[in-house]
C-alpha cells in the first residue's frame, strides 16, 4: 500500500494550530462583562492576536518535559534523605538561608500560582491566557517541590515548622508578603509588569542563579536541584514577562506612560524585597560564589542595561530608581544583615557576626564601604558577644509604609545618614525609606493607608494570643509576640553560637564519621 507521506508541520505552524482559534466572541453576555478587568487600568489592546509566544511549547510537550524534571528532582530528594544529605552541607549556619527561603520565598511561589491563574482567566486574548495558565501550573509546582524538599530539614532543625503562619505575621516576612499582595490587588496588566516583567525578567536571576549556585558550592544537593528545576521554568516566565511588555507597548502609544510608571514602581519594590537575598549571599553562605555586588553588576547592570537599551525604541527609559539601586549595592547586604542581627530575638532564623576571615572577604569585595562603615560596628558586636553581652535590640523599629522594611537604608550619597521621607495624607503622617517608596504611596495613597505594618499591629494589640493582658504587671510584649508567632524562644531565634542547631549538627556529623 502506498503511504501518502505528508510533510510534518513545522514548529510554528504546529503551535499555531494547537493554541489559536480556541476562543470566541461571546453572544449571551457582552465581552466586557466576561472580561471585566481588562480595561479599567487604561491599557488599550486593539488586537489580541498580535500576541507572539516566545517559546512555542504546546501542552503535550509541556507535560512531557515537566514530568522529566519532576522525576529527576524526586530521585535526588530521595537520595538526599536516604543518605543524610543534610549533614554534608558546609556548616549549619547555611541552613538558615533555607529557613529564610521557606519563610519568605516559597509562599510567594504559591501566590504567583494564584496570581497567574487569576490573570490567565482575565485576559481577553487566547495567547496570553494559555501562557499565564502554564505559568500558574509551574508556580504551584515550585511551591510544592520547595516545601517537599525543605521538609527534610524540618525533621532535624529548628525554624522550619511554622513558616506559613510566620509569612503572614512576622515583621521581616511582611516585606515579601506585602510585595506580592500589592501585585495581586492590582489589575491584570499591572500584575504582569510587576511579577512577569520586573520580578521575573529583571530581578529573578539575582535570586535563583547565584543563590542556587551557592547552594551547590555549599554542598546542598537537594536545594540545588529544586532551585534549578524551578529555574528551568523561569526562562519561560522571563520571556513571557518581556513579551507582555512588548505587546502592550506595540498595541497603543497611550500605554507607554502607564507601563513606564509600573516599571518604575515594580523595579523598586523588587529591589527592596531582594535586599533579603543580598544578605543570604554575603552573610549566610559559608562558602561564597560571588558577592551580592558582583551579582548585581552582572544581572542588573549589564543584563538590565541591555534590556532597557532594547526597550528604548518604544520610548521606555530605565527605571527611575536605577541609579539609586545601583549605588546601594555597596551597602544593602551589610545594612540588612545588621538589622537581622539587631532583632535576632524576633527572627525565626539564627544570626551571627562573620568571622575574621569572612570580614576580610567582605573588605575585599566591598573596598569602598565595608571597612569604613560596617566593620567597626560588627567588630564591636562580636567583642561584646564574646563577653557575654550579645546585642539584642528589643525596641520595635519605624517601618516604611510602602516596602514595610525598617527605615534602615541610608541617604543616597551618605551612608552615615538614615534616609527619612514623609507625606501628609488626610490628616495623618506616613513615612518612607526612600524617594521611590514615597512616590509609590503618593500615587495611590488610598491603597497604602491599608498597609498592615507589623510594628503598628503589635502596638494595636493584634499580635498577642487570646487572653493576653498587656496591662498586667511586668508584661513582656516581645515574649507575648514571640508566643503569638509560634516561635520557640531560645530554639528558633537568637544567635547561632550556642544554638541547638549548632550543637546537633556537630554531634550528628561526628556520629556520621565514626562508630558511637
Amino acid at each position, binding site marked *: 500500500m502506498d503511504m501518502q507521506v505528508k510533510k510534518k508541520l513545522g*514548529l510554528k505552524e504546529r503551535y499555531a494550530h494547537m493554541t489559536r482559534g480556541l476562543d470566541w466572541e461571546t453572544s449571551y453576555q457582552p465581552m466586557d462583562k466576561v472580561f471585566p478587568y481588562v480595561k479599567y487600568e487604561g491599557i488599550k489592546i486593539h488586537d489580541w492576536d498580535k500576541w507572539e509566544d516566545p517559546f512555542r511549547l504546546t501542552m503535550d510537550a509541556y507535560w512531557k518535559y515537566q514530568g522529566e524534571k519532576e522525576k529527576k528532582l524526586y530521585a535526588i530528594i530521595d537520595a538526599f534523605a536516604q543518605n543524610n544529605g543534610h549533614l554534608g552541607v558546609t556548616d549549619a549556619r547555611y541552613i538558615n538561608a533555607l529557613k529564610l527561603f521557606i519563610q519568605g520565598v516559597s509562599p510567594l511561589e504559591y501566590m504567583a500560582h494564584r496570581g497567574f491563574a487569576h490573570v490567565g482567566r482575565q485576559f481577553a486574548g487566547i495567547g496570553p491566557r494559555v501562557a499565564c495558565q502554564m505559568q500558574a501550573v509551574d508556580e504551584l509546582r515550585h511551591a510544592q517541590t520547595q516545601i517537599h524538599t525543605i521538609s527534610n530539614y524540618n525533621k532535624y532543625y529548628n525554624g522550619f515548622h511554622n513558616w506559613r503562619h510566620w509569612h503572614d505575621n512576622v515583621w521581616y516576612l511582611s516585606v515579601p508578603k506585602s510585595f506580592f499582595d500589592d501585585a495581586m490587588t492590582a489589575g491584570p496588566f499591572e500584575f504582569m509588569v510587576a511579577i512577569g516583567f520586573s520580578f521575573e525578567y529583571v530581578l529573578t536571576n539575582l535570586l535563583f542563579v547565584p543563590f542556587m549556585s551557592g547552594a551547590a558550592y555549599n554542598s546542598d544537593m537537594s536545594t540545588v536541584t529544586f532551585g534549578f528545576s524551578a529555574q*528551568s521554568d523561569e526562562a519561560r516566565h522571563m520571556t513571557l514577562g518581556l513579551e507582555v511588555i512588548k505587546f502592550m507597548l506595540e498595541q497603543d502609544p497611550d500605554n507607554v506612560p502607564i507601563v513606564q510608571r509600573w516599571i518604575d514602581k515594580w523595579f523598586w519594590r523588587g529591589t527592596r524585597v531582594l535586599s533579603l537575598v543580598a544578605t543570604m549571599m554575603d552573610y549566610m553562605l559559608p562558602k561564597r560564589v560571588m558577592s551580592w555586588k558582583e551579582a548585581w553588576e552582572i544581572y542588573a547592570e549589564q543584563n538590565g542595561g541591555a534590556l532597557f537599551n532594547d526597550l528604548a525604541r518604544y520610548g521606555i527609559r530605565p527605571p527611575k530608581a536605577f541609579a539609586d539601586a545601583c549605588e546601594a549595592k555597596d551597602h544593602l547586604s551589610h545594612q540588612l544583615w545588621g538589622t537581622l542581627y539587631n532583632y535576632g530575638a524576633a527572627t525565626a532564623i539564627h544570626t551571627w557576626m562573620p568571622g575574621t576571615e569572612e570580614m576580610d572577604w567582605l573588605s575585599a569585595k566591598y573596598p569602598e564601604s565595608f571597612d569604613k562603615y560596617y566593620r567597626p560596628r560588627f567588630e564591636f558586636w562580636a567583642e561584646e558577644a564574646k563577653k557575654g553581652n550579645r546585642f539584642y535590640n528589643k525596641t520595635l523599629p519605624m517601618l516604611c509604609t510602602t516596602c514595610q522594611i525598617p527605615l534602615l537604608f541610608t541617604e543616597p550619597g551618605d551612608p552615615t545618614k538614615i534616609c527619612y521621607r514623609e507625606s501628609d495624607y488626610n490628616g495623618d503622617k506616613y513615612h518612607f525609606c526612600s524617594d521611590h517608596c514615597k512616590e509609590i504611596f503618593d500615587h495611590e495613597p488610598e491603597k497604602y493607608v491599608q498597609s498592615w505594618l507589623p510594628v503598628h499591629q503589635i502596638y494595636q494589640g493584634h499580635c498577642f494570643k487570646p487572653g493576653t493582658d498587656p496591662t498586667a504587671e511586668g508584661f513582656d510584649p516581645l515574649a507575648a509576640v514571640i508566643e503569638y508567632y509560634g516561635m520557640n524562644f531560645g530554639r528558633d531565634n537568637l544567635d547561632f553560637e550556642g544554638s541547638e542547631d549548632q550543637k546537633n549538627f556537630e554531634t550528628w556529623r561526628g556520629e556520621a564519621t565514626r562508630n558511637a
Partner: protein
Amino acid sequence: MSNVFIAFQVNEDTRPIIEAILEDNPGAVANESPAMVKIDAKDRLVVKRESIESRLGRRFDLQEIHVNLISLTGHIDEDDDQFTLSWNH
C-alpha cells in the same frame, strides 16, 4: 552592542549542547560557576539542532533544552532547526 546569554545546569545532558553552542558561536564565552555554566555572546547566540545531534548520535528535539535550562536573555526565535537569542528586531 549588548550581550545575550544562556545558562545551563552542568551535567551529561548539557555537555553536548554547550559544546555545540561554543563551536557554532565563535566569540561566545563560557563562564563556569558551581553546577552551572553561563554562555555570553555579543548580540546574538544560536543553538543548532544538527550540531547537537552530531554529538549525541541521536535525534534531538530542541525543546529538550527546557529540562536543563537555567536562564537566558534576549528575544527568542525558535523553530525545529535552531533556537536564536538576539537583541535585534
